[in-house]
């Protein structure tokens, strides 16, 4: 039985906004974490979990499910927010992020968190894992399943990403879809200053991938593009999403300093106000 969440664009927008509230609130509660890259990916992840992927929180090990690999593991809060929203675990866990004994580790831990396929956090490794899963799904005849891998743009500086890019094209893994959260910023500043990525889509195209560049905050476009990407075409697909780091919180937007720090009480109130979220309700 296929479980394909079929939420409308408006519903997904609402969910993404709630997830942004969760992200800000859980990181504030934790006192540390990575809000910038979690917020930039919120529309993408909400679209995947509530508009595109086949999955069922009641059966996290359902063989025919789509797989989601968060290669940019530091954005764990966006994944935790989606998994809680989808019912993989209770919302009460969100307030335990990064605390001793929590199922929600600083970076995703598949042995602790229901719905997390594999542990990530050391950058550059997710695409290789996605390929391995995709290869296995193909040989096992699970033709409906797709493997979605979300990478950061700074992460593309890791050489292993390109080893994996070669592999997917060589093996014509058209059940692999890489989504690049291209917010243009990394810890030390702009990617173009730290280590220029050049044209990301062109690089993937040169490796034999089918590519597209879309607005990573336009949910209508995301739903359409990601659903189209389900269709096998003989090649792996890379969807480069133009995004804004810290999207949704004005003082975080486009600011590399918010890569890895939590809001203080005042900032949290301000951020939640901008998002129209009630802190008490979120965490």
């Amino acid at each position, binding site marked *: 039985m296929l479980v394909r969440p079929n939420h409308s664009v408006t519903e997904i927008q609402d969910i993404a906004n709630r997830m942004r509230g969760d992200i800000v609130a859980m990181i504030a509660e934790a006192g540390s974490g990575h809000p910038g890259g979690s917020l930039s990916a919120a529309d993408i992840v909400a679209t995947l979990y509530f508009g595109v992927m086949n999955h069922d929180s009641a059966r996290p090990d359902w063989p025919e499910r789509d797989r989601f690999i968060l290669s940019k593991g530091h954005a764990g809060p966006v994944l935790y927010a989606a998994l809680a929203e989808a019912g993989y675990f209770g919302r009460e866990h969100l307030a335990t992020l990064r605390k001793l004994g929590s199922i929600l580790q600083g970076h995703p831990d598949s042995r602790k968190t229901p719905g997390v396929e594999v542990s990530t956090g*050391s950058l550059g490794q997710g695409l*290789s*894992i996605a390929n391995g899963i995709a*290869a296995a799904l193909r040989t096992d005849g699970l033709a409906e399943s797709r493997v979605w891998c979300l990478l950061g743009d700074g992460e593309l500086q890791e050489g292993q990403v390109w080893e994996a890019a070669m*592999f997917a094209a060589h093996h014509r893994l058209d059940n692999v879809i890489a989504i690049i959260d291209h917010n243009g910023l990394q810890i030390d500043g702009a990617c173009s200053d730290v280590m220029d990525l050049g044209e990301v889509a062109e690089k993937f195209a040169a490796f034999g991938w089918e590519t597209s560049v879309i607005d990573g905050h336009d949910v209508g476009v995301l739903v359409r593009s990601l659903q189209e990407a389900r269709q096998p075409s003989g090649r792996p697909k890379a969807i480069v999403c133009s995004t804004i780091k810290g999207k949704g919180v004005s003082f975080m937007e486009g600011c590399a300093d918010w890569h890895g720090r939590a809001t203080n009480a005042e900032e949290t109130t301000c951020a939640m106000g901008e998002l129209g979220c009630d802190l008490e309700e979120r965490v």
Partner: protein
Amino acid sequence: MARATREAFGETLVELVKEGRDVVAVEADLSKSTTTAKFAAAYPERFYNVGIAEQNMIGTAAGLAVAGKVAFTGSFAVFATGRAYDQIRNTVCYSGLDVKLAPTHSGITVGPDGGSHQMLEDIALMRALPGMRVLVPADYNAAVGALRAAANTPGPFYVRLGRVGVPDIHGADREFEVGRAYVLREGADVTLAACGVMVAKALEAAGMLAAEGISAEVVDVSTVKPLDAETIIASASKTKAVLTCEEHSVIGGMGSAVAELLSQECPVRVMRIGIQDVFGTSGEPEELMEHFGLGKDHLVSAAKDLIQGVRAKIC
């Protein structure tokens, strides 16, 4: 008959699939040397060659394991561990995946390729990882057993295979038990705790020591992690002198593991034969064994020094 432990690799994977195990192999352009080419020929749909990309080899194997496969990886020990350590740590071990690393060409017996290709720190690196089991088979039959045990036991494994032929020690019917050390020869004066290619050397040395009236016990420490504390402590408490013998750095390897155990549980004199904190060098395998002090004569003289030291202290 002298067969290399690597010869067991491809053949055993083929057998495992024949028996119905969902085994796959990921290789990094060394399939002829590691013998995974045999597996590739038998089951091309279960074989992935990533090219010269060891990090991707481990990552791809991890993905295959996430999807339910028992994923073996090849390459040489130096690249498969050193080049991909973070992938082994953060993806394979941290997630507790069914990835079985079985690289070949470990130790100085790689020979003429020289120090860059002679991996002498792999046991240390792998042993330190939570959840990783480390097997160092002494001969072809033990390698078959180790590979089968790795396939049949959930979680990450490191099976250390070698390039050169080693004499057959274990019978083909010997069951390889993970976590068990095998007493191959009983003795009372000194324990020779050996692994890998050094087991054959230790047996030879024990024969030479017997001719001089010294009774040496030979223990094949084929599982370095988890260590068989019971067998090693029993032998050490009997002989009061333990000589560890490995084709690996004396830092962090099997000898270290044995010394760590005995210093806490049964403090006796321990002397570690191995590579003394240096890189390897080009040469023929047997030449190198002599050059680095791993030959049977070295073991005999070290065992005698050790026993003398123990007796001197007692007197």
